[in-house]
């Protein structure tokens, strides 16, 4: 029998039992759509989380930890493939205090290599980079961190009598531009919280650009390496003889050129004996978790498909029973058992295929609707502004999911059509012909 005639044959039978086939297709559709939608929520949440993580951090950053980080090691790391920048920062680790026009801040002083910083995304909002030991760049939020210490104390006194209003009262902050200003910077003993009494003068020549994320505050004082000797000598003089704590604590970040290369850079660093942390590790963990979650969801969805397969099994069994005489005649005329089997398998495959196609289309529609409607509902429940800036995707249907669901649905349709089809081939010609019309 030609393939086209086989399809004709199947179509003819389906047309004769429209309602029954329709109901079976409906069940197959519901099962498959359920699977796709369920799993799509897994994909959606994963995507939302990934986006959240990638948005909030420097994705190409690899944090490197080791006890003995130094500039030479930083130089070495620059040679690793796909490394874009190695930012070696030395942060003052002891008590420190800055005073500008009577305003105070305890912002940390950091010595860094501005060339590498620039490659890693550091930029100035105004001014220029420091040229000598007396010049510094301050973070975007440095000015905001300045406050009037004496006013603060009186305020704390009033706060005791009236706690509620004190929180909302604005702090007496510094309101002038800090660029061009010179301030005093002094080091002190951490334990005693007391200055060594040897202040130095630093001039602000530049202000760093605000960090990409508005919840990250940058009130650091960025100084050139030229300042190190002076600070070291003040520190050495101020601290007791037996002090072993260094003034600076190092902090090293390696930046890969692309997100894809973070992993390889991480691996090289690990092999070199460093402890590293990068976003790719976190993403890996999330991906593993979601792989398990999605597998679980697909499994649950598959159960729905299995339930719908009972419908296909029933429909096909009915179809075979109903057509026993016709099958007998076909066999008597010379239809081979294989052909009979194929005709019935085609029919169940067609039901499965139709159910799958409709389910895929339906799932995309439901998914789109859910992503459109659900944020509005949740937003309304949480109050307008609470949710509006959260970018949540509830459901995503990637092509892999469509492929997996279709494969499962079609396979289940074929399997549930298998026994009825076998039954059709085993029909005895003589018995079938004996059946009354």
């Amino acid at each position, binding site marked *: *029998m*030609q393939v086209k005639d086989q399809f004709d044959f199947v179509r003819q039978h389906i047309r*004769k039992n429209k309602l029954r086939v329709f109901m079976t297709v409906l069940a197959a559709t519901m099962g498959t759509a359920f699977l796709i939608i369920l799993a799509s929520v897994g994909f959606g949440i994963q995507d939302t989380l990934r986006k959240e993580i990638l948005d909030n951090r420097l994705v190409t950053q690899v944090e490197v930890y080791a006890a003995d980080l130094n500039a030479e090691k930083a130089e070495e790391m620059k040679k690793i493939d796909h490394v874009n920048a190695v930012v070696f920062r030395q942060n003052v680790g002891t008590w420190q205090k800055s005073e500008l026009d009577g305003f105070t801040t305890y912002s940390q002083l950091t010595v860094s290599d501005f060339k590498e910083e620039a490659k890693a995304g550091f930029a100035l909002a105004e001014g220029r980079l420091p040229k000598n030991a007396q010049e510094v760049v301050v973070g975007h939020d440095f000015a905001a961190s300045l406050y009037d210490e004496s006013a603060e104390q009186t305020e704390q006194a009033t706060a005791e009598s009236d706690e509620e209003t004190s929180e909302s009262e604005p702090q007496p902050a510094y309101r002038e531009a800090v660029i061009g200003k010179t301030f005093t910077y002094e080091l002190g003993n951490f334990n005693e919280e007391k200055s060594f009494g040897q202040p130095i003068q630093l001039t602000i020549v530049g202000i760093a650009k605000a960090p990409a994320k508005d919840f990250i505050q940058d009130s650091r004082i960025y100084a050139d390496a030229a300042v190190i000797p002076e600070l070291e000598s003040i520190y050495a003089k101020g601290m007791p003889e037996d002090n072993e704590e260094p003034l600076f604590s190092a902090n090293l970040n390696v930046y890969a050129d692309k997100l894809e290369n973070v992993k390889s850079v991480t691996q090289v660093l690990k092999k070199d004996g460093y402890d590293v942390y990068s976003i790719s590790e976190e993403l890996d963990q999330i991906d593993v978790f979601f792989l398990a979650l999605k597998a679980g969801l697909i499994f649950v969805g598959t159960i729905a498909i299995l339930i719908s397969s009972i419908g296909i099994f029933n429909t096909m069994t009915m179809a075979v029973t109903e057509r026993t005489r016709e099958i007998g005649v076909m066999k008597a005329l*010379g*239809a*081979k058992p294989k052909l009979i089997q194929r005709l019935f398998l085609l029919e169940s495959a067609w039901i499965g295929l139709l159910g799958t196609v409709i389910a895929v289309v339906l799932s995309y529609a439901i998914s789109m609707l859910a992503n459109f409607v659900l944020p509005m509902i949740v937003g309304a429940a949480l109050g307008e502004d609470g949710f509006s800036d959260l970018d949540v995707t509830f459901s995503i249907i990637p092509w892999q999911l469509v492929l997996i669901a279709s494969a499962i649905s079609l396979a289940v349709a074929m399997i549930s059509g298998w026994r009825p089809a076998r039954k059709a081939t085993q029909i005895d*010609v003589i018995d079938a012909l004996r059946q009354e019309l």
Partner: protein
Amino acid sequence: MITAQHIQHSFKIGKKGKERPVPVLKDLSFHVEKGAIVSIVGRSGSGKSTLLHILAGFLKPDSGTITVDGTVTSDFNETDSAAFRLDRFGFIFQNFQLMPGLTTFENIELPLKLKGISRTVRKAEVNELLQQVGLQEVRDHYPNELSGGQQQRVSIARALITNPPVIFADEPTGSLDSETEQEILALIRSLNRTRGITFVIITHDDEVAAIADTIYHMHDGVLAAGGVHHAG
């Protein structure tokens, strides 16, 4: 053309575990010449249909061999048997056995479809045959829109469409009135003459049996030539 040798067949009846064999065919041998019309008569339950089923390959005999045109068919598996039937045999049944969902045209076309013949060739061949057996007027009718005689004509046309050398007929006129019976018999006779088709006809009816070149009588599980002849 067809040779049956030492055919034995029995059916098992009774409840499972307590079955007992009921022998129906007992060492039956017979031969059908090419181009002949052979009829088999005998009492109801004597085993005529059983013999036909064995000859056609619907049923395997317990023992004995069937040879058709030099090919031993009694050893065939289901698939080979089906292929052989499609190629060599045509069937006419008492209750026509037409497909209720197919029109006259489509019913006659069915064996050609099974053979995998292309649509255009099928169309030409079916139309030609419709002409020959006088069914053009009802080509788009479904079986339930046809008279018994017309239905049997359709079933004969279906048997003829593949041009088989042998046609088996089990009570071909059993459901028809005598006038229609005459028409069908005339058609069979003319097909035998013009196309040289071999017919094996099973019947109760002496008039039907009378068109045969040889009449076999089924009795006690074997065939005897020159059976009862009450014609006239």
